[in-house]
């Protein structure tokens, strides 16, 4: 059997996006090795280019009818394509905003990009993994690269501390997850493929063992999406790690976690749907309440965003628990816009800390006078995270709450609404710091603010990333119709979700013909 034949049998073309990223990361390594210091001019753009190509490959696969590859262990259905696109995009923006940051810290840029790309490959494979071993290998690829990234500023003790904390907690959560997975393997009579496990479990009566397996799996997943009470690592790791890494962890890694949760819980545990919905409801409520309330007390911008990202994960879970077509679609939509608003916020924070060397909230006082661009960008991104119209975050939350209310999750939606009011309070506190303070109340660092230039190497790409994310944050909400249609389509065309929707009997919601009737002026 020759290679081409084998490849076609395995449907290997479906991992083309991952392949492109792997080739890119090898290329980055080699160029970095050959060119040495000079490579810093090239490697980031190789990385960005590779990720763009990968994004193109993902778009190209959209209409591909055959979604299973590698004998069913990897599936490239529309859902995984959307998640992979989110991860690729977040990796791309992260590279764009990290160039200057990494160079200024004096560490090697090539290695940073390599590890970041490795993490992305892990996340991408995880989004489509359909088999226990693949899932675990992908999960560990993502995790181990993340540990390396958090400790990347090796001269900074805080970064080292963050890496160690992340490693220890992460390793134990991986162990829990692995234990849960091994239980599934045993209970299903030695199956590793998710669908086969579900079939075998349905045939046998293993309720207690299954519940235990479910608990362990949820623990592993909740760690990745940093849901309360599995969130303890988040603030410390976010505070200590290099800021671009935090940006990636809060978006890319979280999206991968949600991909895993969606695929694994829905496919493997249809028997325990009520149970895992119940657990996730508790996690969501705890995350929304604790994340948003503790964020009130934060003085460091990175910690603020850490807690806010915990709260945001709680909002996203509403879509997952709603378990309707609109619910899953709104989850995808929210993750997609969360990508832009969160990374836009991080781009501003990185820029500010590059210019001033701090990320204390109080140091932002009076920034409006000195740097209107950061002020505008950060204000828009934070207000969008708080759900202020007409920014994207408002529409994201509207979709989630709409879906939640329709599915009858009244408590969840009410908690979500009240906590998002709380979140407005702490987001707007930062805006107030920047915009409202008068010239005499300016903080010391803002008083000595350097002249705004974009000449230094790497700042241009940061500027581009900032402007792009902020524009996306502003406009995607108002023009959300095509994006939401895309999300709905991906839910409808994903076999396992279609199966789940058919099983629970939720019908898609049609729209009144009157509601879309053309204008009839008097």
């Amino acid at each position: 059997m020759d290679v081409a034949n084998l490849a076609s049998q395995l449907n290997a073309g479906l991992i083309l996006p991952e392949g492109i990223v792997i080739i890119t990361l090898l290329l980055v390594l080699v160029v970095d090795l050959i060119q040495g210091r000079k490579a810093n001019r090239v490697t980031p753009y190789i990385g960005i280019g590779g990720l763009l190509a990968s994004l193109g490959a993902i778009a190209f696969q959209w209409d591909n009818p055959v979604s299973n590859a590698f004998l069913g262990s990897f599936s490239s259905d529309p859902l995984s394509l959307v998640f992979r696109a989110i991860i690729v995009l977040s990796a791309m923006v992260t590279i764009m905003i990290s160039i200057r940051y990494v160079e200024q810290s004096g560490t090697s840029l090539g290695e940073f990009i390599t590890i970041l790309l490795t993490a992305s490959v892990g996340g991408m494979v995880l989004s489509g993994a359909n088999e226990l071993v693949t899932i675990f290998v992908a999960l560990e690829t993502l995790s181990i690269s993340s540990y390396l990234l958090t400790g990347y500023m090796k001269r900074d003790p805080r970064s080292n501390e963050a890496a160690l904390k992340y490693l220890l907690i992460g390793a134990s959560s991986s162990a829990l997850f692995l234990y849960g997975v091994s239980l599934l393997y045993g209970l299903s009579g030695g199956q590793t493929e998710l669908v086969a496990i579900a079939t075998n479990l349905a045939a046998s009566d293993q309720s207690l063992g299954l519940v235990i397996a479910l608990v362990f799996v949820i623990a592993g997943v909740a760690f990745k999406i940093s849901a309360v009470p599995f969130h303890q690592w988040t603030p410390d790791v976010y505070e200590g790690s290099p800021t671009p890494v935090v940006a990636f962890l809060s978006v890319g890694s979280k999206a991968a976690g949600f991909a895993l949760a969606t695929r694994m819980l829905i496919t493997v545990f249809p028997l325990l749907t009520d149970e895992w919905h119940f657990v996730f409801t508790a996690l969501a409520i705890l995350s929304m309440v604790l994340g948003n309330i503790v964020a009130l007390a934060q003085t460091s911008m990175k910690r603020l965003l850490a807690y806010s990202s915990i709260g945001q994960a709680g909002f996203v879970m509403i879509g997952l628990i709603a378990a309707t077509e609109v619910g899953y679609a709104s989850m995808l939509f929210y993750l997609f816009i969360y990508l832009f608003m969160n990374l836009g916020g991080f781009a501003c924070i990185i820029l500010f800390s590059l210019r001033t060397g701090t990320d204390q909230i109080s140091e932002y006082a009076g920034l409006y006078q000195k740097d209107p661009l950061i002020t505008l960008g950060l204000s828009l991104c934070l207000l969008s995270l708080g759900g202020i119209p007409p920014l994207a975050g408002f529409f994201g939350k509207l979709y989630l709450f709409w879906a939640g209310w329709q599915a009858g999750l009244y408590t969840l939606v009410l908690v979500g609404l009240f906590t998002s009011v709380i979140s407005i309070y702490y987001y707007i506190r930062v805006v107030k710091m920047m915009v409202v303070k008068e010239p005499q109340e300016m903080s010391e660092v803002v008083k000595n603010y350097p002249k705004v230039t974009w000449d230094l190497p790497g700042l241009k790409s940061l500027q581009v990333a900032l402007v792009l994310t902020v524009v996306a944050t502003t406009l995607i909400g108002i023009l959300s119709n095509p994006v939401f249609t895309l999300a709905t389509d991906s839910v409808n065309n994903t076999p396992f979700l279609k199966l789940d929707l058919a099983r629970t009997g939720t019908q898609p919601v049609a729209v009144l013909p009157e509601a879309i009737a053309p204008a009839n002026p008097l």
Partner: protein
Amino acid sequence: MESAQFPWLTAILLLPLVAALPIPLIPDKEGKTIRWYALGVGLIDFALMIYAFGSQYLLQSADVQMSETYNWLPQIGVSWSLAVDGLSMPLVLLTGLVTTLAMLAAWNTTEKPKLLFGLMLLMYSAQTAVFMAQDLLMFFLVWELELVPVYLLISIWGGPKRLYASTKFILYTAIASIFILVAALSMAFYGVEPGQAVTFDMQALGMKDYPMGLEMLLYAGFLVAFGTKLSVFPLHTWLPDAHGEASAPGSMLLAGILLKMGGYGLLRFNVEMLPEAHIKFAPILAILGVVNIVYGALSAFAQDNLKRRIAYSSISHMGFVLLGIAAYNSLGLSGAMLQMVSHGLIAAALFFLSGVAYERTHTLKMEKMSGLAKQMPIAFALFTAASMASLALPGMSGFVSELAIFLGFATDTAYSYGFRVVVVFLAAVGLVLTPMYMLSMLRRVFYGDLKLKLDGFDASPREIFIALCLLVPVIGIGVYPKLATNLHDVKTEALATRVQAELPAFAQKQQGTLFSQQLTAPTLAEADFARID
């Protein structure tokens, strides 16, 4: 394109918003260009409104008119849907007038002028959109759109306690607006079978028949949301702070238009869409209205700060709106509508003139001000005129509207005689208190010896112009009320008919309940019908 087909309302809504976008790019450090730009946009938009309503709006019709519906987010049943009727059209015009004048009032702002005028344009759009939106979720969106501009308007250009006031404002408003969303979702999903369409069209939602329990809950939710905006006791505490601390143009917008959003919401949602629950809640509205009138008037007495006193007078005047809404007849509803328009003009004038005084004296403490009349005779005359309008002097618009509300409520035979007597008596007490605190305010600020060294002279032509633009309509409506009532009368009558249609059925169904003592027998309600005709 024929003028009938042109999307006038969308154009009116979007013009200020789109015009606000390029403001950061306009090269202008001093704010000299920006203010002309913003004022020009405001005027053009106001002219657009007048032209569009003048040529397209039919006064004889009680239905929504000039509807424009476009597909927006069909997946969740939201459409871009605008229309006006008698409830919204006068308020849209009021918005155009007051916002444009507020921009003129902010003429000499030197601090962050770009941001100020940008926010004002943004608010211009948001306010008109609130009154025109016909889709409940779109309404919620534009309602929330107001939040951050007002927050910044108070917290940047406000008085010494501006941060406290603005934070209080945003928390109150944001929490209250949760109720709108929850009520909207409940209304839209009620009775929708799986697979059936969900719509947020307000007309369609108003047609639905909700079970009584749900309707009461919905009503209560809307009441909390709009009551907070309208500063109904006990949800009013944000108002004196916000109105007192905001700069004069900010207060003009807050008192002139934002308060009216609450009253409009009550009429549009509570009365029009949930008439059955309205019958049950109306006595409570009447009681709350009286509490507002008396409480606002008494609190106004205790205020030493000029703007806070005016702010409490607003609370008192909003009580009349509630009282008018509580009446089941068209006279009361029409009075409530007129009171909103009239108060929008008067309060804007009062806040503007107190800003004029503040610019000269740099204080709002009335004990520190005195004797301004000699130095600023023109401003004194204008302020006196505005105060007279506020205390409902005959010949001014406030008199007409409050009289209509009194008559409307007093002649409403659906309430028991005793209830009416008590309510009208207490409201009349409030009416007596108003001249007392208004006149004492005038005395303390303008009479006596001059204590302060004034910074500047009498009102400038620009300031006189702004005050006149607000006061001339006040006197015009006072002399010939039909000027304003013409715009909404057909609608309020239709509204009253709709409410009364629920009345007999309700009185029959609910015999022996708590409110049956206040509601007389069905036969009396039939007398109401006769009167309407």
